[in-house]
């Protein structure tokens, strides 16, 4: 069965450092992979989408990589700030004809400390 794995342990880092979050998936061949941010008690908010033919995507302090051979995506936040503290969700996307849903990983909680 399809599985999405994100580190369930919280990641604690110091302000200013780079946070790196991992998303591994099995039994998937996603054409796209999305990352979302979720704050406690709130709905997920879209951050980035990367296509299978893109190795890397950047948006301001965010960077996502997508390795279809390793079946892994890495999500980086550079110069992290306390406001970046949240849970980050990855969502490998189905191919056309592969279903009509977006399935989320369990998420990794990031805590950025002063």
């Amino acid at each position, binding site marked *: 069965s399809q599985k999405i794995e994100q580190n369930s342990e919280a990641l604690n880092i110091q302000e200013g450092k780079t946070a790196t979050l991992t998303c591994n998936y099995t039994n998937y061949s996603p054409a796209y992979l999305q990352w979302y941010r979720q704050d406690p008690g*709130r*709905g*997920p908010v879209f951050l980035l*989408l990367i296509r299978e033919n893109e190795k890397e995507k950047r948006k301001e302090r965010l960077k996502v990589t997508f390795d279809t051979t390793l079946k892994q995506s890495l999500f980086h936040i550079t110069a992290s700030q306390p406001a970046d503290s949240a849970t980050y969700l990855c969502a490998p996307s*189905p191919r056309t004809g592969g279903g*009509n*849903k*977006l399935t989320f990983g*369990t998420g990794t909680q990031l805590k950025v400390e002063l």
Partner: protein
Amino acid sequence: EPEVTQTPSHQVTQMGQEVILRCVPISNHLYFYWYRQILGQKVEFLVSFYNNEISEKSEIFDDQFSVERPDGSNFTLKIRSTKLEDSAMYFCASSDKGPGTGELFFGEGSRLTVL
């Protein structure tokens, strides 16, 4: 900025009662979704809806659940006979592109508490 709105923000109900959760998706969006999140757990897919019909549903979405788009703006989730385990945050989402190819816009959620 356009947003997805959900009502009510919190509903408390007795086991066995019917509940309707309402959503107003972004106006030009065509794809609609319901997700739920039990406290402390992952965001789980319930159902997707396109062209006035269900396009996919999960195992969770059994006969006690139904969705409807009664007019051009609302998208509702009905739970016919609530159980204790239905207590969760329910999120509505919409998109202007098919699943995976475009971002999902989520509402702030409706917290359902079943007593």
